[in-house]
């Protein structure tokens, strides 16, 4: 099976403009390594959860996939064809027809002066997909309907302020649907929403996947949400994918100390049994900023299991079986992780 989307060694480095002092001292310009060489695939109809904390590069990765950000290195392939250099013109329009985006904040995504109808119709106008106005009308109403805003004709001429948060996100989804894309990059699509609305939106997304064979790159900071929704999970830390694999394996048997710590602190609605609290691996400190990436394994300063090699050599992704891989020297040869003997303070 050809991957729908394939990222090969994608890197996004942002130059930081130095001050006058840097110029005088001829210091090299600093670079923020937002994404620093990642491989990732999304198959047709697959849901891939891209999980990471703020500053891990997950949003930038998503922006590369929808071609809002140019990668500084690496290749992007759609159906096996290299589309890295596709920028502007008909080729980009053709690309965007197939890859759409849902942003986090439905309040900021919608133009307050635009009706639901106009918002949903806009991608077709911009991408010049449907020349006939009558046909456009039909598709718009259908998209609004399948986004769960029913009756569609009723919602079509409303303005965003007349809608609730959940309804707004449905409008955003309808807008992403009109071009009948193959992949939707959803960047924290539910993190602004209340629990009951959140479930509705996730339900809608999965319904659309079943009905249309839609694939998702589901970007979230919430590991447990990715676990519920995704077929595969990729965990990012400081611009790198540190672990990737089938969702149950990554959560149930994490092979990277970072993932394991994240799993251990992900809150669950089950009150902890006595003793469970002690097993939380709370990492000290915070994710360093991407302008100062530590040498060696970039997680080593916070890693409870770090040893000498971690401080000097960056680990590649080691296969640990069944499509599951971890970028950790301890996972070399598919070994299981040792127990956390020493916690990095707290």
């Amino acid at each position, binding site marked *: 099976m050809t991957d729908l989307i394939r990222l090969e060694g994608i890197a996004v480095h942002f130059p930081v403009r130095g001050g006058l002092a840097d110029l005088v001292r001829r210091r090299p310009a600093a670079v923020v390594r937002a994404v620093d060489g990642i491989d990732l695939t999304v198959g047709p109809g697959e*849901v891939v959860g891209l999980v990471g*904390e*703020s500053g891990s590069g997950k949003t930038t990765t998503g922006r590369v996939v929808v071609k809002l950000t140019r990668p500084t290195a690496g290749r992007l392939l759609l159906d096996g064809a290299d589309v890295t250099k596709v920028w502007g013109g008909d080729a980009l329009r053709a690309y965007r027809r197939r890859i759409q985006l849902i942003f986090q904040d439905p309040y900021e995504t919608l133009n307050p002066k635009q009706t639901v109808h106009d918002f949903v119709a806009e991608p077709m106008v911009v991408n010049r997909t449907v020349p006939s106005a009558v046909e456009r009308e039909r598709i718009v109403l259908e998209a609004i309907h399948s986004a769960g805003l029913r009756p569609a004709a009723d919602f079509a001429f409303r303005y965003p302020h007349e809608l*609730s948060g*959940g309804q707004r996100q449905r409008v955003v989804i309808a807008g992403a649907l009109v071009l009948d894309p193959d992949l939707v990059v959803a960047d924290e699509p539910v993190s602004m929403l*209340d*629990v*009951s*609305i*959140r*479930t*509705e939106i*996730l*339900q809608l997304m*999965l*319904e659309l996947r*079943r009905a249309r064979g839609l694939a998702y790159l589901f970007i979230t*900071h*919430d*590991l*447990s*949400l990715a*676990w*519920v*929704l*995704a*077929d595969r999970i990729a965990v990012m830390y400081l611009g790198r994918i540190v672990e990737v694999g089938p*969702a*149950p394996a990554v*959560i149930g048997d994490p092979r990277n100390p970072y993932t394991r*710590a*994240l*799993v251990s*602190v*992900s*809150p*669950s*609605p*089950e*009150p*902890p049994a006595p003793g469970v*609290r002690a097993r*939380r691996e*709370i*990492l000290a400190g*915070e*994710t360093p900023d991407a302008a100062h990436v530590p040498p060696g394994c970039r997680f080593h300063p916070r890693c409870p299991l770090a040893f000498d090699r971690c401080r000097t050599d960056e680990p590649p992704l080691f296969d640990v079986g069944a499509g599951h891989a971890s970028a950790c020297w301890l996972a070399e040869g598919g070994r299981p992780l040792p127990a956390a003997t020493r916690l990095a303070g*707290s």
Partner: protein
Amino acid sequence: MTGNIDPRRITRAVEESQAAEADRSDAIRDATAPEVTVPVGGADTLARVEAGFEADAQAAAGIAPAVGGATVPRGRGRRQWPLPKQADPDAPLLVVEGLRTYFAMDGGAEVRAVDGVSFTLNDGEALGIAGESGCGKTTTALSLLRLLPANARVVDGSVRLFGIDLRLKTENQLRRYRWREISIIFQGAMNALNPVRRVGDQVAEPLVERLGQDAAEARKRAGELLELVGIPKARGRAYPHELSGGMRQRAMIAMALACDPAIVIGDEPTTALDVMVQAQILELLERLRRELGLSLILITHDLSVIAETCDRVLIMYAGKVAEEGPVDTVFRRPRHPYTQLLLRAFPNIRADVRTLGTIPGSPPDLRTPPEGCRFHPRCPLAMDVCRTEEPPEVTVHGVRVACHLYPPGGEGTVVPVPIVEVVGAVADPGTGSVA
């Protein structure tokens, strides 16, 4: 009452490392002296918090004189300052009864945001208040100190702190209780902190304002408070934008602890934070509870956070209490249909079932709440009586629940709600039960 409460206190905890016993007596002397009048202009942070509550600058001058009355050094366990004069040393820490807070809307409509909420908070206890947006959880907390927007009014009920009814206090008298007896950690630390003042100065501000400490002393203690919450003292010179989100939230906590209040309210204290930072902050709150014997009210939409940090939980729906009880009982054997559905809507990473339940419908418009039980339009188990009669609050097996399924005098056996719809990636497509 005090037997199981750790008598260590903030100052103690700090001073053990600082070995500065003199400070403490100074602090107490200052606390018992009449408070210093400070012009409003110098009270940025506090003024921002209380914006809209001060009629004019005179309000600042009218701080109720501190009380030099009955000292109950051990009576409240961890308490550092004397109790207010009218305090009843034997009364529970906080008893809220029948609290109603209404918002006046344009066009004469009234939103009954909080409509008859009662609860008790005991010394050293952590109570979680949970519910969806608009259920009244934040309004409930803000009503305790009347930190409400101008169009909101506490119309009924009582708020008794050490037996003193705060509802009977005037605005000026109430100022004596803000920060000193009840403090709040606000959600968005970036918005709650003043962007143009150094963090250390902001932490010191309640000390100067409320306890009348002099600037140098307050700054010193602010440094200690910052250390207590895990910020190096030197970082007190930083401005809020120079700190990370987690550090800012720690600074907010330091500020909330500054006057050693009886109760700290956390209003979604970890909502905007990353999971690991959230875990650090929750760990910090837990440690502070343990070391200082803090009493905590934690407001959050995230039941998972409450499951891991609180002793008791109060589930609100549309301005009313749906269910209240010990976390362990309510989370493991939820009774109210809303609690059951709400709990299923959270992913449980420690269980093997990768599914989420849905709650049908959406919360009601509180201008026109439904007749009878407010949850009945969304309740899969709604009966005729639910459409007409409001369910009374009934206490069964140590849990307070307001639902007709649990009538007064009944057994209180859990009535499980049928699974409505389920969302999840591995929910088997073959069964057809999957959405």
